[in-house]
C-alpha cells in the first residue's frame, strides 16, 4: 500500500480540504492506484539531468519584460464585488483573534 487513510487525512489537512469518511475511503483507493502507476518513474535514469521547471526556448532574457510604469488599479469596489462578504473596503472573514 502506497498511502494510508491516515495519510489521506493528513494531506487533506495540509490542503485545507474537509472530506467526508466515504471520500477518505475513495481517495485512499484512488491515490493508491495512481501512486502505484507513478512508481515507474524509479525505472528511468535521470542522472545528470537538469530538472525542467519551465518551457525554455531561444529568446533574450529581457524579451518578456514590460515597461515599468503606473497603471490604474481595479479599485476597491470592483475588487470586492465578488467577495461573499465585505465591508468598509475590506474582505470580511470569521473572527480570527478572540478578545
Amino acid at each position, binding site marked *: 500500500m502506497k498511502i494510508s487513510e491516515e495519510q489521506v487525512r493528513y494531506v487533506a489537512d495540509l490542503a485545507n480540504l474537509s472530506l467526508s469518511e466515504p471520500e477518505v475511503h475513495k481517495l485512499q483507493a484512488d491515490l493508491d492506484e495512481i501512486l502505484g502507476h507513478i512508481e515507474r518513474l524509479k525505472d528511468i535514469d535521470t542522472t545528470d539531468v537538469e530538472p525542467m521547471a519551465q*518551457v525554455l526556448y531561444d529568446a533574450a532574457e529581457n524579451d518578456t519584460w514590460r515597461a515599468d510604469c503606473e497603471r490604474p488599479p481595479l479599485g476597491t469596489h470592483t475588487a470586492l464585488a465578488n467577495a461573499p462578504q465585505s465591508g468598509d473596503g475590506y474582505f470580511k472573514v470569521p473572527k480570527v483573534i478572540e478578545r
Partner: protein
Amino acid sequence: METASLSVGQIRQGLQARRFSAVELAREALRFAEAQNPSTNAYLHFSPERALNAAARVDEKIARGEDPGALAGVPVAVKDVIVTKGLRTTCGSRLLAGYIPPYDATAVERLEAAGGLVLGKTNCDEFAMGSSNENSAFGPVRNPLAPDRVPGGSSGGSAAAVAQGTAVVALGSDTGGSIRQPASFCGVVGVTPTYGRVSRYGLTAFASSLDHVGPLARSVRDAALLLGVIAGRDPQDATSAAAPVPDYTQSLDGNVKGLKLGLPREYLKDLTSETGDLIAAGVAALRKLGCEVRDISLPATDYAVACYYIIATAEASSNLARYDGVRYTFRSASSGTLSEMYRNTRGEGFGAECKRRIMLGTYVLSAGYYDAYYLKAQKVRALIARDFARAFEEVDAIVAPVSPFPAFKLGEKIDDPLAMYLSDIYTITGDLAGIPCMSVPCGKTAGGLPVGMQILARHFDEPNMFRLADAFERASAN
C-alpha cells in the same frame, strides 16, 4: 440564413457583399445555438447583448468603409475557464457559479477587437480537469455526433459547439490535451500553440507551466486565422513570447512535398484497431502527398503520464488554493471559524476530480516526498523535451494519434481515474515539451465516430504544422 456550416471566409464575403449584416447573422446564430443547446449542453450561458453590440460595431465599420477586422461578424464560443468582463465565468465549478469577472482575458479582448462576436461561454470539466467533460458541476456535455457519448474534455463544450455548428470557432484551453482530445472526439480541428504563443492573462490557472489557450474550428484555415488574431506578446503575461506572429494563412499553400515526418513507435502500441487503421490510412495519404515518413522513437513516452500527473497536480494544488471562501463568491454556510471556512468552502465547493488532484498535488509536494516525486518528474519532463528535440533534428514534424480510442460512452470511465489519466498519454507529451501540436480530423470509425490525427512541430513552427494539416484536410476532402 444557414449559420451551422459557415466559415470565417464565407462570413467575410457575405458581409462585404451585403448579403447579410453582422447583426442579422448574430441574431440567427444566437437563435440557432439556443435552440440546439439542450441536445448537447455545450453552452453554459449565452451573451446575446454582448454579441449583438459587437455585431453592431462591425456593421458600423462596414458602413463607414473601414476594415471590420479579421474575424468580423464571426460567432465565437469561449470556454468558461477564460474570463469575460461582466459575463459570468464559472470554470465548470460550483465554487464560481456566481463569479462575474472584472476584466477580459487578452485572447477575448483580441478576438473582439478583430470583430469576433462572443456568443456565450462553454461547458468544461471543472477547472479544466478531465478528459470527458463529465466533471462539470453543470452537467456533462453530449457529443453532437453520438449523444450517448462524451465530447472529450476538458474543452468539451467548445468542441461540441463547433461540431454542432452553434459556433464558427471557439476558444479552448489545453494543459494535457484538453483542446486536441475533444477536437478529435467531435471531428473538428483543435490547436495547442507553442507554450507562450498566446497570452494566458485571464485564463483561470490550472497548471501554469503547462496551460495554453488555443483555437477550435471546423477547418485548418479558420483555426489558423483565429490563432493569428489571439497570438503574440502581451505585457500582462510575462510568459508570453515576443517572437513575431506570422500570417499563418500564408502557410496554407499545399507545399508539403519533401517534408520529413516522424511516426513515433511508442504512440502506436495501445490503439484500438480502428483508430490504428485510420491513422495508418492518414499516414499513407501524407506519403501520397510527397511527405517522407520515417519511424522514430520517443523513449521517455512510457513515463509521461506519471510525470504529467505529478507536475500538473502539484501546480494545481497551489493554483486552486485561492478558492477559500474569501474572494470568490462561494463561502460555506458552516464557517464558524476561519479554518472551518477554508475547509468547508473547499470541501463543499470542489467536485471529486478537483479534490483528487488537489490531494495528489499536495501529497507529492509534502515534506519528504518532494525529491522522489516533483523533482524526479521535472527531470523526466526534461527527458521528454529532449526526445522531441532529438527527433526534430531529423524530421520536420511528428504525426501520431490524439487518443488511443474514439469517444467513449458517458459514464464508461468516470469511476476509474487512472484509466482516464492513461488515456491522455499521446497528448500530454506535447504540453510537457511546450511544442505546438494539433488535432486534424482523420476519418471515422464504422460506427461513425471521428478520429483525430495529431501533428506536432518544433517550437514556434506553427506554419509547418498548419501547412501539413491543411494539405491533409484537403486530401481527405477529395
